[in-house]
């Protein structure tokens, strides 16, 4: 059953990604609509697959890399669907859906069996921590995609290259605004996620902060986004600088995420 939903999700994501990429090269309202529909149906299949997996294991499927990647992918797609509705930025899909698809493919290639939940994870603080962390990750992923688009569009403007892609990409200020919204949502979520993670760490290992690589990298991620938000609110950082920091933040975030498996011994 899970496998069926998962395959369905994969197929739909592949089609949606192809459609979104085609949108970069062709102007067709029909194509845009289909891309959006395919992705939405794919997202529903993904949610069903996740729910089914959760009901099998009697817990949220976030306990190993395979499950986490799939969940990450789901969060990104969900966040994108929300932003696409809000800002009408189809081109964002061309940058975000490939990432989500890649995560899903890597996830499917990994080996993971439903297994007994280790005692260390049997804490509400852990679930709270993990869920919020993924919400913030999704927001930061969108921010990163938007930042890449910003840099490309800015490059076009500075080099006076007014090609087809230039015409398709949204205005700089729109991209900047989306980036800010993502940050404004993602940062508080990440902050609470780190605090709840510390509380869980205290329960599970007897110490709030053990300076293991996972926690250290989380702190670095948090500091980068804190600097970005601070710079933005006090000095008015925006544009290229904000975009570069946003991309850096997401790279560090990915390192944190991938490093997670090795740091906590479950």
């Amino acid at each position, binding site marked *: 059953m899970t496998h069926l939903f998962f395959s369905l999700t994969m197929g739909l994501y592949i089609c949606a990604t192809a459609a979104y990429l085609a949108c970069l090269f062709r102007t067709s309202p029909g194509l845009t609509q289909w891309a959006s529909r395919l992705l939405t149906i794919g997202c529903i299949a993904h949610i069903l697959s996740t729910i089914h997996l959760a009901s099998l294991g009697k817990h949220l499927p976030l306990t190993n890399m395979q499950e986490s990647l799939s969940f990450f992918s789901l969060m990104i797609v969900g966040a994108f669907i929300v932003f696409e509705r809000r800002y009408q930025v189809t081109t964002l899909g061309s940058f975000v859906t490939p990432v989500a698809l890649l995560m899903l493919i890597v996830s499917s290639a990994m080996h993971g069996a439903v297994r007994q939940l280790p005692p260390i994870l049997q804490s509400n603080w852990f679930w709270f921590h993990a869920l919020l962390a993924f919400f913030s990750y999704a927001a930061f992923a969108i921010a990163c995609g938007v930042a890449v688009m910003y840099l490309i*569009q800015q490059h076009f*403007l*500075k080099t*006076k290259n*007014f090609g087809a892609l*230039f015409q398709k990409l*949204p*205005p*700089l*200020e*729109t991209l900047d*605004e989306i980036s800010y919204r993502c940050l404004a949502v993602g940062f508080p979520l990440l902050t609470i996620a780190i605090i709840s993670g510390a509380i869980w760490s205290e329960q599970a290992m007897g110490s709030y902060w053990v300076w293991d690589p996972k926690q250290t990298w989380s702190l670095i991620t948090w500091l980068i986004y804190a600097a970005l938000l601070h710079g933005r609110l006090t*000095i*008015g*950082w*925006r*544009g*290229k*600088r904000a975009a570069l920091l946003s991309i850096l933040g997401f790279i560090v975030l990915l390192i944190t995420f991938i490093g997670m498996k090795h740091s906590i011994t479950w």
Partner: protein
Amino acid sequence: MNIIVVGLSHKTANVEIRERVAFSPNQIEKPLRELVALDNLVEGVIVSTCNRVEIYATTRDIAGGIARVKRFLADYHRIPLESLEPHLYSHHSEAAIRHVFRVASSLDSMVVGEPQILGQIKTSYGYAAEYKTSGIILNRFLHKAFSVAKRVRTETQIASSAVSVAFAAVELAKKVLGNLSDKTVMLIGVGEMCELAAKHFLNSGARGVIVTNRTFERAERLADEFGGEAIRFEELLANLHRADIVLSSTGAPHIIIGTKDVEEAVRRRRFKPMFFIDIAVPRDIDPKVDNLENAYLFTVDNLQEIVQANLAQRNREAEKAEEIIDKEIGQFYKWLSSLEVTPTIVALRTRFDEIRKAELSRTVAAWKDATPEDEKRLELFTAALMNKLLHTPTAVLKKAGQGGRVDLYVDALRQLFDLEAAPEEDEELELEE
């Protein structure tokens, strides 16, 4: 009946000649009446814009009709035909239909896709309709042209991109600043180009205008016009940060806005981006401003480039438009041809019947001992003979009418049997707009 087109346009004549041949809309009645009074000319419409002067007419005699319209154009404007003739083009039948469809769809315009031409043709047709110089064929023809133009507009992207420098500036600003509704435009200098661009920005929703100029009075005058604010030239740099969009076109021999000034302004704006357009030659704004973060500087050359690219795109769209026109021509031409069939058949039968009746009465008069029965028999015999003889020509003509290739038959029949011009039935016009 054939449609003919005689005219000249920006492609065949320069502006001096076009001006001399132009018709003033205030005095259009006289030339229209003179036009349809020409020999063999039935209906006529005169289109006169700054880029073209064209006459659409219907006639039975294509070559003669075209020659007479050319002569009319020359005589009316008192230009020797020999000097006007090289600039004139003429089309008839299908080519004439194609020409008018293309003109109405703005495929023949100087700026392909510009929308004014359709309105101008509609106005010209309005005059002809008012003075009743257009009739059943031109009415239908021009309404068809309007609907074809509408189809082209909605089914292709021929008019979707900016093809003027001023409009390109607005499109470009939107690519940086997004929504323009809360943005302020600053005009440095009061050049015509800047003014035009400012108008476009205001039309696109820009919130306000700040005008500055070396002569403060001129700045004030322009600011009044836009409902904006005038500032003294010395206060320019102190106010630079208030502008989101800066349009500069002074005649200053040196740079008036340097990188330091822009850096300062951007900082004061808390790094909200600024959009500069430098129209002046020599430049008003240091080209290095473009290297600054959150400042975007464009020159007229950049805008020209966008315009050129958009024009190229329009030309690609124009190909799609030609396909639409191809289809519509076929349909209209069929209608035009079928128009001739029924009246010709009626005329032919009437002709035969006249001859038959004349011969019949002569025969009866000469036949001394004919009984009424004999007369009846003779009557039936001649009628049957006539019907048999006419059966095949009628069938062939009807079939040709459906295929849209009927001119040859109609003309041949009219000449062979010396038929009258077809009486024109009045038809309810379907207005397509």
